[in-house]
Structure formats: structure tokens, C-alpha cells
């Protein structure tokens, strides 16, 4: 039943690689100097326009925040789709998220895993490390406009903190934060908040994704901090949920 490597297969691979090499070489070879238009603009006006010191943050959450919205949606869809697809049986999309019976089983499986593989060391280390990681995650999330980091990166750190809590907490006395239902609620609410934040500019006459807080007289950077916080919550909840679901299903 084992499929052999046939001549046709090798020919196909060869054809692909040769043609793609033909296309890639001129593209990678080119020595055209890298354009400086955008860099010069950001260097001269970026900080005044956005209020953020970190220019990457200024672009990510200011100039090109619409892309970031799309990225967040990709993450949302991917997390829910992954959980839906790996959940056995039934309708992929109907079951999965927030459904009480489903969550129950995910949670049950998680606790069995924790019981089986827990060692005293794991319990102590992850349990004590969890809150620290969470705090660090919030720091990364909220100071993205000043230093490297931001909502997304902070969110991932928060997610790992949640996973630590789930691994380290006692099976019966775990925190509410590690329950799948809570995470699903958190994620959907922060998604709703993100959409509303993007719409807030419309209400105040500034336009889609306009900086509302600046119009209300607060510092311009406030909007970036706000978006960072919302995105961080959403990402943390989503990835944390996905990791917990996967850890629970591994054995």
C-alpha cells in the first residue's frame, strides 16, 4: 500500500523548483535601493501625528489599523475554526465555542491530563509563575507605544500565563480564568469592543477608525493604548482558549 516515488512525481517536483527558481532569482537579485519615502515621513511627522514613540506601533495601530483589524479577524476565525475542527463528531461550526456540554468535556479532559502528568515541581512552578507572567503580559500590552511590544505580543504572553495557571492550578480549585466558557465570553466581548472602538470615530464625526480620544481632548496616544488593551485581551483569551483546548485533547 506504500506509495512509491515515481518518475512522474520527481519530474513534477523538478519542474516546480526550476520554474520558481527562474522567477525568484531576478526578484532576489535586484539591487534597487530601498525607498525612504515612508521612513522619512515617519521620522519627521510620525510622532506628532500619532503621539506614540514607537513608530511600528504608530503604523500598526494608527496608520494601518485597518490591516490590524483584518489580522485580528483572521485570528478569531482561525481559533474558533481550529477548535471546531478538532472537536470530534457533530457539526463543526455548531459545536465548539461556548456550548456548555462541549466545554464540560474539554474541561474534564484537561483536568485528567493535569492529574496524570502533574508533578509537584510543575504545579509549584507554573502555579507561582502564572500570575507573574500575566502581569508581564499586561505590561507588554499597555506600554507598546513606548517600548517594543503591544497588544498582540502582550496578548500572547497573557495567553501563556493563562495556560500556566491552567496547568498549575489545582484541578478542583482552579481559577475562573482558565475555564473555556469565560475565555469565550472574554474573546467575543473584546471583539465587539474592537468593532465599537473602530466605529466610535463615526459617532464623533471623525470618520472610521479616527482617533476619538484625541477629539475628546485626551492625549492622542490614548487611542493606541486603548486599542492595544482590547486587542491584547482578545488575543490572550483566544489563544489561551485554543491552547487549553489542545492540551486537554492531547491524551
Amino acid at each position: 500500500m506504500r506509495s512509491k516515488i515515481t518518475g512522474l512525481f520527481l519530474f513534477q517536483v523538478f519542474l516546480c523548483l526550476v520554474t520558481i527558481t527562474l522567477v525568484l532569482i531576478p526578484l532576489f537579485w535586484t539591487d534597487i535601493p530601498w525607498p525612504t519615502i515612508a521612513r522619512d515621513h515617519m521620522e519627521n511627522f510620525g510622532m506628532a501625528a500619532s503621539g506614540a514613540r514607537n513608530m511600528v506601533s504608530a503604523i500598526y495601530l494608527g496608520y494601518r489599523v485597518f490591516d490590524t483589524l483584518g489580522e485580528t479577524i483572521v485570528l478569531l476565525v482561525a481559533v474558533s475554526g481550529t477548535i471546531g475542527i478538532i472537536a470530534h463528531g457533530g457539526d463543526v461550526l455548531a459545536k465548539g465555542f461556548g456550548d456548555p456540554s462541549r466545554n464540560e468535556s474539554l474541561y474534564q479532559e484537561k483536568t485528567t491530563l493535569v492529574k496524570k502528568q502533574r508533578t509537584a515541581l510543575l504545579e509549584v512552578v507554573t502555579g507561582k509563575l502564572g500570575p507573574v507572567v500575566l502581569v508581564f503580559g499586561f505590561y507588554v500590552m499597555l506600554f507598546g507605544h513606548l517600548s517594543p511590544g503591544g497588544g498582540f505580543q502582550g496578548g500572547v504572553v497573557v495567553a501563556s500565563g493563562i495556560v500556566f495557571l491552567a496547568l498549575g492550578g489545582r484541578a478542583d480549585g482552579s481559577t475562573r480564568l482558565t475555564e473555556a466558557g469565560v475565555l469565550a465570553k472574554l474573546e467575543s466581548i473584546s471583539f465587539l469592543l474592537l468593532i465599537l472602538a473602530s466605529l466610535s470615530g463615526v459617532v464623533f464625526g471623525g470618520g472610521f477608525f479616527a482617533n476619538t480620544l484625541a477629539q475628546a481632548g485626551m492625549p492622542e496616544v490614548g487611542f493606541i493604548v486603548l486599542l492595544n488593551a482590547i486587542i491584547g485581551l482578545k488575543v490572550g483569551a483566544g489563544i489561551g482558549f485554543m491552547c487549553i483546548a489542545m492540551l486537554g485533547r492531547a491524551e
Partner: protein
Amino acid sequence: MIERMLLALLFLIGFWGIVGIRNIIKKIFGLTIINNAVVILFILEGSRIGNQVPILEEGIENIVDPVPQALMLTAIVIGVCITALALALAFRLYRHSGTFDIDQIHRQVHDVT
């Protein structure tokens, strides 16, 4: 120049992983590698025009181009999302067919239909 050629080689290795290996998990490895190669290409070339981190402080000028960095943040995240979904699909395919070999999976599916 040498850096870019090495990146092209990295890209081709990843592409070979997608096309030339039948194990679907390794195909996903290949996808991750080509995505990574493109991200490195953007960052590497974008850093040619400056020598400072794009975080403005007093007296900082000649920063690197922040635009490719912001774009690549998005690209990295999207890449991971796609990877996660692909792995979930690979998991289901394995559960149905008991193999990671794309040709065998193909054959099984077409025998059924």
C-alpha cells in the same frame, strides 16, 4: 547580495518541502519556512537604510524603515493562524485515514467517491 541569495535558497528549501515531500505535516513545516524567509527578507532589506531602532527619542535619527516591520507583524500572525488551521485539518485527515501521506489520503478519498 549573498544574504539575499541565501534567503532565496531558504525559500526554495521550504518550497521543496511543500511540493516534494508527501508527509502533510512536513508540508506545513515548508509553509512555515517560506513565510519565515519572506519575513526575514522584508526586515533585512528594510534595515538597510538606517541604523537605529524605530523608537523615537531625543536625538535619534536615521531610523530603519518601520513600514515593513509593521507589515511583517501582520504577516507573521496570519502565517501562524493558517498553520494552526492546517494542522487541525491534518489531524482530522489522519483520524480518517490513518496516514500522513497525501497520495494515500487522495487515493482513499477517491475510492470512496
